[in-house]
């Protein structure tokens, strides 16, 4: 037999675990302010995340999906995208969303059980959080098709988790993106765990990046804790897509330092040693080390940043806690542009029986 197809998956890393450059720095890395901006956003995410978990633990927020450990992937992707590109998130990529203009208050409002948090004031064309796993991938393929139809130089970026790559919708979207060379990038955030399922039990595939290959889509791995590497790989993938070169699957290797959500207890299935090891290679440490080595950052700036983040988060929490109580009409107001007559009586019933909290009426 002769070989009729071959493939290889490359892994990119530009900033190693100690914060040393391991390769040729991309153009943006020569701009110290760009790097500082990315680092600031990563710190804001980490601090906001801790606050959100605390709000949940003290009964002031619903179930929340933490992002700790994944900040470099999220911020690197956000920094590589253009404002006119469209994001199709899962539900914990706050770093990308904040970079694109979603607010901390909107995130908190959503996790407080109120969908109005998805009515982003910022990126109006970005999709909201997607809870049914994998189902956002075809949306991104569709948006990319719309950009193609309209002749726009825009790209769609879809997130998916390592568990999500087992869903049929993911393969269907990749297959379409390959068939039509669509301007879309699928970012697999491989954080090691799909709730309690390790990647090794999720798939027999050597890498998740190679899942694109069968659909005719190039795949690449990147150290997802390396914000410079993630941004560089994403910039290349987006430039290729914008130039008509088609889709890319980017597998970012990172780690979920938290539980799956605040309703999960990862100690039930995950070894403490694994978590301790992951904390040693988390993304903030190495980014700060690199910035300090380049004389772009010092302790005074760090102290100032943390004070600023605390103030920004406190302000967002205050705005969140003082937002108006939604009325029962919010269940009905946006079901249809032209409301069917059949809903009127139900709207009136709901108005007469408004209930708050966990009690039903």
């Amino acid at each position, binding site marked *: 037999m002769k070989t009729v197809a071959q493939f290889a998956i490359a892994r990119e890393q530009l900033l190693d675990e100690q914060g040393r450059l391991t390769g040729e720095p991309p153009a943006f890395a020569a701009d110290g302010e760009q790097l500082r901006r990315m680092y600031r956003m990563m710190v804001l995410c980490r601090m906001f995340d801790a606050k959100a978990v605390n709000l949940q633990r003290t009964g002031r927020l619903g179930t929340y999906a933490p992002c700790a450990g994944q900040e470099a992937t999220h911020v690197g992707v956000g920094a590589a995208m253009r404002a006119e590109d469209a994001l199709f998130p899962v539900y914990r990529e706050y770093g990308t969303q904040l970079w694109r203009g979603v607010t901390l208050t909107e995130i908190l409002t959503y996790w407080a059980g109120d969908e109005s948090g998805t009515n982003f004031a910022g990126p109006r064309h970005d999709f909201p959080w997607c809870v049914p796993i994998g189902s956002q991938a075809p949306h991104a393929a569709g948006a990319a*098709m719309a950009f193609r139809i309209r002749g726009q130089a825009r790209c769609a970026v879809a997130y998916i988790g390592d568990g999500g790559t087992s869903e049929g919708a993911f393969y*269907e979207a990749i297959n379409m993106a390959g068939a039509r060379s669509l301007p879309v990038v699928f970012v697999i955030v491989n954080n090691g765990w799909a709730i309690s399922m390790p990647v090794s039990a999720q798939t027999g595939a050597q890498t998740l990046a190679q899942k694109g290959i069968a659909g005719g889509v190039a795949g690449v791995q990147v150290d997802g804790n390396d914000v410079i590497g993630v941004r560089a790989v994403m910039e290349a993938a987006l430039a290729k897509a914008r130039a008509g070169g088609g889709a890319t699957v980017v597998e970012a290797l990172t780690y979920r330092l938290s539980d799956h959500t605040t309703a999960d207890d990862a100690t039930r299935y995950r070894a403490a040693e694994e978590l301790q090891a992951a904390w040693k290679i988390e993304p903030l440490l190495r980014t700060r080390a690199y910035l300090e080595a380049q004389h772009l950052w010092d302790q005074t700036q760090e102290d100032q940043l943390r004070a600023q983040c605390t103030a920004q988060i406190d302000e967002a929490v205050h705005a969140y806690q003082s937002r108006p109580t939604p009325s029962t009409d919010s269940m009905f107001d946006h079901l249809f542009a032209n409301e*069917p*007559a059949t809903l009127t009586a139900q709207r009136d019933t709901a108005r007469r029986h408004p209930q708050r909290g966990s009690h039903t009426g």
Partner: protein
Amino acid sequence: MARVTLVEAINMALNRALADDPDVVLIGEDIGLNGGVFRATQGLQQQYGDLRVIDSPLAEGLIAGMSIGMAAQGLKVVAEIQFMGFIYPALDQVANHMARMRHRTRGRLTCPVVMRMPHGGGIHAPEHHSESLETLFCHHAGLRVLCPSTPAAAYGLLLAAIRDPDPVIFLEPTRLYRLARQEVQDDGVAWPLDQAQVLREGEDVTLVTWGAMTHETLRAAEELAREKISAEVIDLVSLSPIDHARVLESVRHTGRLVIVHEAARHAGLGGEVAATVAEQALHDLLAPIERVTGYDTVMPYFSMERSYIPGPGRIVEAARRALQY
């Protein structure tokens, strides 16, 4: 004015929508050069190109999911599902995203998508090609569900569905695709949404139905007329929302109600019509409400489908029972 079949009327409406609005795009399996397996999209890709009439890979979930992505970025999408029995992989997208995108983003993103698909049996098709699954969609908030029964209705309702800013499930009665011709003017005029149609006026009993079953029901009304029983026939047309007011008005007049549908009886839409009449017009009823439906069996393969689909005999029998009560 042309005399056209129902499937030709659909083609005419799609052609009109594509010509009128550059944001309208079609997506589905084999809808391009092949014109769709029923030829509903015949000639359209040749006329409008493969970026507006898109042959999709063979994946119904992808068709629905991509339609959401395209629509939320400003296009108006008409998706074709080849047969209703293949809708299940698309249900996740329709129920979890298409139906609720406007609601969950508070109107920021919307899904002006029409999901067209053949509905019902009677054409000697393979297994899984003859289902009547309207209830699946009627149970979901945020969707409109339409089912035309004539070429004129198909033309006017499809234009209305495409122009509506929200998702519409558009059920096309498979055995009516080529059954009859009707004068339909290609005037671009859309029918109103959410309205039932009175197909035949009557005094003694109200027969409520939709889709292909309108034909069996009208034949039953003819037969009843020979027995001096005057039946009013209402075509719901809109299965979600239901024009309950029109049904109630008729039942208050006749005092008797027979609901006819091809879909299975249990949790079928007939139950919803019956419950609403029982709630709001109990004292106008002169007899118990009757339902004539498909059986609570698997939709049979074609050797048995004519025994499954309610015929005029079963409808007449139910109407007589109501009259004799």
